[in-house]
């Protein structure tokens, strides 16, 4: 029963997002035609005579009743047709598919790193709460989390890319490079990945750290920790076997939920590092007023996030059997 309501919820959210995408260009001030054709209608109006206008309206199906338009839109989506990108002069769907792997690589790498780091540091902090190490870590992590990712990215480019010349400053691969071995290719991709991934890690570690710290603070006060201490078990053993295991439970759902924030965060990071993922497409689309591309990228990002939330739900039920019986 619980599962069914959950799934209905997800279907409803997807419908909301699709309707939002459909209605947005149609309710906003300005000509929906200019949004769909991607010409910057508001800045540089292109004068169309009545006949051309009618022809274009018919081409995009904008002369049909709204309900019919919505039906056609849904049908197109089911066929994987997301419209035509003016800037890239290519179908939006094929651009997105080409870009998604880079975003997933970036987000996946960063998530793995900041989860492990955040959980470790949060545990250390909570174990001796209020101590020098705790206060120091807390202040440090709250401070670095305040750096906006676009600013931090620019600092990294200047420091590690230009002053020290340690890492490439843009792209995901060296252009026109021919790799002699697959190892060389991996190394090149890794070198390009390091700075943007580090930026993401710093931007997002605060959330996990604070959550793990709070979660541990809760667990540390529990009776079973006192019992374990009374039994004379080693601190390290209690920490790992008794405290962390329980404190990690609320973290697991956060992992998948955080993937959503991360994907949003890549918009800035990819833009600064010119990393060819889905996020930078939003920037390109905004810069060139490429509305079909903008909406396509938004749709993909949202769907990935909803999928991540769905996975979070499933994992949580598996990890904590108490949820199932509720």
């Amino acid at each position: 029963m619980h599962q069914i309501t959950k799934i209905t919820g997800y279907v409803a959210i997807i419908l909301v997002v699709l309707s939002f995408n459909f209605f947005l260009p149609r309710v906003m001030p300005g000509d929906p035609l200019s949004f769909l054709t991607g010409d910057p209608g508001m800045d540089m109006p292109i004068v169309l005579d009545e006949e051309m206008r009618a022809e274009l309206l018919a081409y995009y199906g904008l002369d049909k009743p709204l309900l019919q338009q919505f039906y056609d839109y849904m049908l197109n989506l089911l066929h994987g047709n997301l419209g035509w990108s003016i800037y890239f002069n290519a179908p939006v769907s094929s651009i997105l598919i080409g870009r998604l792997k880079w975003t997933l690589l970036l987000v996946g790498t960063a998530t793995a790193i900041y989860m492990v780091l955040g959980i470790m540091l949060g545990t250390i902090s909570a174990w001796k709460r209020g101590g020098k190490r705790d206060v120091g870590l807390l202040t440090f992590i709250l401070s670095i989390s305040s750096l906006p990712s676009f600013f931090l990215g620019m600092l990294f480019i200047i420091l590690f890319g230009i002053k020290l010349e340690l890492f490439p400053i843009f792209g995901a691969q060296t252009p026109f490079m021919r790799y002699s071995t697959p190892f060389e290719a991996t190394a090149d991709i890794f070198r390009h990945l390091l700075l943007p991934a580090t930026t993401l890690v710093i931007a997002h570690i605060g959330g996990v750290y604070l959550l793990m710290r709070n979660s541990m603070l809760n667990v540390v006060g529990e009776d079973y920790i006192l019992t374990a201490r009374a039994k004379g078990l080693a601190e390290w053993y209690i920490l790992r076997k008794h405290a962390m295991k329980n404190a990690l439970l609320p973290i697991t759902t956060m992992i998948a939920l955080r993937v959503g924030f991360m994907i949003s965060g890549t918009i800035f990071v990819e833009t600064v590092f010119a990393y060819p993922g889905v996020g930078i497409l939003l920037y390109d689309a905004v810069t060139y007023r490429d509305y079909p591309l903008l909406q396509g990228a938004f749709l993909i990002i949202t769907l990935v996030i909803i999928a991540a939330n769905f996975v979070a739900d499933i994992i949580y039920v598996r990890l904590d059997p108490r949820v199932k019986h509720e």
Partner: protein
Amino acid sequence: MSTKEDLNRFWNAYKERRLGLIGLGIVLFFVTLAIFAPYIAPYDPHEMYKPVEHPNSDHLLGTNDIGQDILSELIYGSRVSLFIAFFVSVVSAILGTSLGLLSGYFERIGFFLMRIVDAFLAIPRLPLIIVIAAFMPPSIWNLIFIFVLLGWPITTRIIRSEVLSLKNRPYVDAARMLGARDFYILGRHILPNVVPLIIVRLIMEAGYVVLAESGLSFLGLGDPTAKSWGMILHYSFEYPTIFISDLWMWWMLPAGLCITFTILSLTFIGYALEELVNPRLKVVEL
């Protein structure tokens, strides 16, 4: 117990939080800059002089690509960022709290409103802001509208869950038994108990808005006529030789630091308040 007494006690507890005091100090610094900008700034930030000048005695931080004094831009920039953050966080707090109180107290309204909140919270906020902003003509008021539109649901959800636990407390039952009306109970007995939560949320939201506004401006979706810190970063980032020359040191770096320190101060204040409000987190003196 009077309100003044409450405030005094609160301030005495807050004073002990070092992070909170640092945060408060930084915020007050920027607020002073924003209020007295015309008296502090050496030039009108829109006035144009010789472009791309290095720092000198006339222009302490040089000039930008169209010759505007960067220091004056920064000082006036505090107005834009702080005004938007203040306005949005206050309006979304009022809206979010009222809806949260209603939906916690009246089950039917709650059920209906929570479905809307669910929909809002399931869609990632930042991409949504970007998409809506891209479809609207860029202006400060449009930005404010978008931020408020997407800001209230979180507050509503937090306040609602608190109201749900408060409304069955004995003192609320007692008030009801004595014939108090629903809105009297909400305003007199429940609202005062959620005020600390609202303040924490408000501070957190202000920090988010500073970040999101500067991010949006950085992407080129800000108000082009407003001098915000994000806008300065946007133009400096688009300048062809920003990274390979020394320009970044006085053009990009100060603007980025202003944004960082504003967010930092709000984060510190938010954390200090949360420790006070949420006894579970209270630091035990060791």
